[in-house]
């Protein structure tokens, strides 16, 4: 619909607006926006997996929460930012390798379930290993090790800058030959293999990439929000992230960001209505059933179902 250059211009304008507008908003909103940027990063990284590589990860929170915890644990124990960052880096690498390996060994349904189980296992671990993670009480990142010293707007701008950079990188990647290869693997892995692509390597790499992006988001979370709890690695967050991607529209990168913003905002707004989680659930079911490509790709009037599989036969 809009040309690539046009889109680029819109993106820059949006970014500029995002940077400047908060100066007129009360601090609480700026804080919310900061969190939204962080979640947006998570959504983008998950879209790389679901929308581009065809890896339906139901355990994405692990990439987000484990580095956050690593940062927090190292920060509380060592009083050194450098060590804390290093710990986060190690965590990102470890988790990425683990899940990356799983990506090469499972596919489709198996991948969904194994990633979900992973998230669940980490969740239980975070709750049970009280000595390390604070168990059910969670972990607090000491003020000295966080961005607390900075004014709200400064925090927001830093997070926005990092988000824009990383997001921009993901965008560039999706449009490159690498992104096309991923799409090819998603469409027909065997054919790509027949053409000489080492699909396992690609799947592993994209997992590490997506994991790193989510890990960066996790560290930002630790720096800004400072409260870490087991939910950050658990299936609830993992599946909510999938909802963000689906709501906004997979394979668009910007869609999941909007989806996350929409869903989280809805949660806040509807908070007062007693049945609100159920409403959210119903909305989600409706989207999956009637608008599976997500809201970004939704074109009104579009009430006919979209068939996702075309079988062709001799």
């Amino acid at each position, binding site marked *: 619909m809009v040309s690539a250059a046009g889109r680029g211009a819109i993106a820059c304008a949006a970014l500029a607006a995002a940077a400047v507008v908060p100066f007129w908003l009360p601090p609480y909103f700026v804080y919310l926006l900061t969190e939204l940027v962080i979640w947006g990063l998570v959504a983008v990284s998950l879209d790389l997996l679901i929308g581009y590589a065809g890896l339906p990860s139901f355990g994405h929170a692990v990439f987000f929460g484990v580095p956050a915890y690593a940062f927090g644990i190292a920060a509380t124990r060592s009083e050194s930012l450098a060590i804390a960052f290093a710990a986060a880096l190690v965590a990102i690498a470890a988790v990425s390798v683990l899940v990356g390996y799983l990506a090469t060994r499972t596919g489709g349904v198996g991948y969904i379930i194994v990633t979900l189980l992973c998230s669940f296992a980490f969740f239980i671990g975070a709750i049970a290993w009280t000595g390390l993670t604070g168990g059910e009480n969670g972990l607090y990142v000491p003020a000295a090790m966080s961005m607390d010293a900075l004014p709200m707007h400064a925090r927001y701008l830093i997070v926005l800058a990092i988000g824009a950079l990383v997001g921009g990188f993901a965008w560039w990647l999706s449009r490159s030959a690498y992104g096309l290869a991923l799409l090819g693997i998603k469409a027909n892995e065997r054919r790509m293999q027949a053409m000489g692509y080492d699909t396992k390597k690609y799947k592993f790499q994209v997992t590490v990439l997506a994991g790193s992006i989510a890990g960066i988001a996790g560290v930002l979370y630790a720096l800004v929000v400072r409260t870490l709890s087991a939910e950050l690695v658990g299936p609830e967050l993992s599946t909510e992230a999938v909802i963000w991607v689906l709501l906004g529209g997979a394979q668009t990168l910007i869609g999941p960001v909007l989806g996350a913003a929409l869903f989280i905002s809805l949660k806040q707004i509807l908070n007062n209505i007693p049945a609100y989680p159920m409403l959210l659930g119903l909305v989600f079911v409706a989207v999956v059933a009637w608008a599976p490509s997500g809201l970004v790709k939704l074109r009104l009037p579009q009430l006919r179902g979209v068939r996702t599989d075309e079988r062709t036969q*001799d």
Partner: protein
Amino acid sequence: MLELENLDAGYGKVQILRDVGLHVGAGEIVGLVGRNGVGKSTTLRAIVGLARRMAGRIRVGARLLETSDPSRMASLGIGYVAQHQEICPDLTVEENLLVPLFASRRSPRCIGPIYERFGRLRERARQRAGSLSGGERKVLAFARIMLLEPDVYLIDEPTEGLMPSAVAEIAALVAGMRESGAAVLLVEQDLGLIRKLCDRIYWMNVGRVEACTDGFDAATADRFLGVK
């Protein structure tokens, strides 16, 4: 017995058949011939509802075939033998034969005559159908459809990949269907079989029926198949 009028059909949004028309009478074997990909299998599948009908009419006997639910085809007297995956591999041979009987609420004893006719199936009754050889599978596929004594047979390349003795056996089976008065629409690539069995032949090209001959004609064969 079987009549197709102006049939358009395909899969999903993709249209494969365009304005296909043909008819098969009782007691005759009609061939449907053409190169790979022209829509021969799709024609059969459109009749039984395994491909999407987009336009046109199908008549069985004198009645219009309105339903496209594959489960109803057997009860309407239509027997379909697919080219691939024609049997249920995880069931035993006997269970494969019982399925059509159970589905049509006929007595399991109707198996008796089939076993009489196909001794080999009786020998392998308890064997898992997936472990049968290609030829035996085809025999089983035919047997389970023949159990229902359909008026119309739709058969898709039954001899593909079979050794000569098996081919002869299948050919005899198909000829027998004609004797029993059924209408047979046979998709085949084996020229010898076409020559031997078919009373009439429809020749297809890219989704259309373009010619019809009484029996095999070498010139037409050359035109549609590219062989002499």
